[in-house]
């Protein structure tokens, strides 16, 4: 067995383990929380009173305008000076959630706004109130449009979690760095880590396609119109 393959197989276990217990949970949790935050932010911007609109805009402006790595440093290394001490994993989770919240709020806002006014009016005309119209008519259609851009956010997030290595979360990339520090094989190990990230995002791409297909079916778009 060639040396590089041997090394890859040896390090595969620890790398996958790090991905399984840190990278994947960090990604999933911050996506779910971030999307919730993004949804609320979008509603605040679209339908909230003026102060809430201003607050939502301010939040998105700050988060989109500053580097994610710097945000993570502020939370993990900076906040202790203000008396807020967080472990590495929760600090990373908060950082990624806030980041996903800002980006996804723009997506959610755009897709909700893209649903024609006539759909709201049709809902009102059959007696629905605002929240029924939002839940039953607007969101199901908006979700369908949101799948590709939100998948982008999701896939970016998987890769961005490697930044958590810089705030001491022992996730996939930090594990790779540790292995390199004892094996002195950066090329092989970092390529291996990259391949694992590639595999993870490929799984998400496949899920995205399935989801799009399902939405398309549930509007009859795949069968020819008569």
């Amino acid at each position, binding site marked *: 067995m060639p040396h590089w393959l041997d090394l890859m197989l040896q390090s595969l276990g620890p790398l996958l383990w790090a991905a399984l217990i840190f990278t994947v949970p960090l990604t999933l949790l911050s996506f779910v929380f971030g999307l919730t935050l993004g949804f609320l932010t979008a509603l605040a911007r679209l339908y909230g009173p003026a102060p809430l609109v201003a607050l939502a805009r301010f939040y998105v402006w700050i988060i989109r305008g500053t580097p994610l790595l710097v945000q993570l440093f502020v939370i993990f290394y900076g906040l202790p000076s203000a008396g807020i001490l967080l472990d590495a994993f929760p600090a990373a989770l908060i950082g990624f959630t806030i980041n996903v919240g800002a980006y996804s709020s723009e997506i959610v806002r755009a897709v909700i706004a893209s649903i*024609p006014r*006539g*759909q709201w*009016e*049709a809902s*009102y*005309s*059959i*007696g*629905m*109130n605002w929240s*029924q119209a939002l839940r*039953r*008519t607007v969101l*199901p*259609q908006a979700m*369908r449009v949101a799948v590709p851009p939100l998948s982008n956010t999701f896939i970016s997030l998987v890769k961005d979690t490697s930044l958590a290595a810089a705030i001491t979360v022992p996730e996939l990339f930090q594990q790779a760095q540790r292995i390199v520090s004892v094996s002195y094989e950066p090329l092989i190990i970092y390529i291996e880590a990259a391949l694992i990230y590639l595999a993870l995002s490929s799984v998400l791409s496949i899920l995205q396609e399935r989801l799009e297909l399902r939405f398309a079916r*549930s*509007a*009859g*778009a795949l*069968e*020819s*119109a*008569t």
Partner: protein
Amino acid sequence: MIHLSAIEKSFGGLAVLKRVSVSVAEGTVTALIGPSGSGKSTLLRCVNLLEIPEAGRLTLGGEVLDFTGRPPARDAVRRIRRQTGMVFQNFQLFPHRTALGNVMESLLVVQKWPAPKARARALELLDKVGLAHKAEAWPLQLSGGQQQRVAIARALASSPRVLLCDEPTSALDPELAQEVVDVLARLAREGTTMMIATHDLRLAASVAHEAIMLDAGEVVEAGASAELFTTPRQARTRRFISTLTPDVSLAPSPARHETHEPGAA
């Protein structure tokens, strides 16, 4: 009886309805005609409060609503909307629900009926508009005329006191428009109260008992539709109706309008 009295509505300082008063008797069909921008669609949308007038009074069933410039109580809006159904120019079916799902929606969500009961009622209504066989079809798979007929069934689902139709045939070519006219005519014969904003003379003449001519936000003339279309009293009405007829002859099949000349209906 539906009463709109002294209704005023403006958009961005432009008065669209100027103290308009209209009455519609139960079981009758009233056509609202007039050029684009005359306010006929806005008037119709004031009945189910998609537009809130700035002044005036709406009486519908047992409800009396006075407009004061402030938003009316949500409850009052809901009670009015439950007594009205609306058909839109471009159908506005819910694309993520089947024909059946579209018709069931208000029964499930607003009336809180159990699904089997809502389903039975929705199928009955689809049958009424001749589309029981398309119950499981998606809106995308239906022709424009079929979509509009589903939209009519949807609007009728919660048994409204009045059916409001906003240019129901304008987005359809003449042949598809005819199937919608046929459905509306049948509803009219069955005594459905309707208000129809339209410049489709074929529709107005074959379905409406009463007609109201609007221009620049004011009622120009109102009366029995047969008379208003054939012997209008006002010069403005005469001029408007004469512009409609050549319009029809520009349609793809010129032979068609002769058989549907307003006077012939």
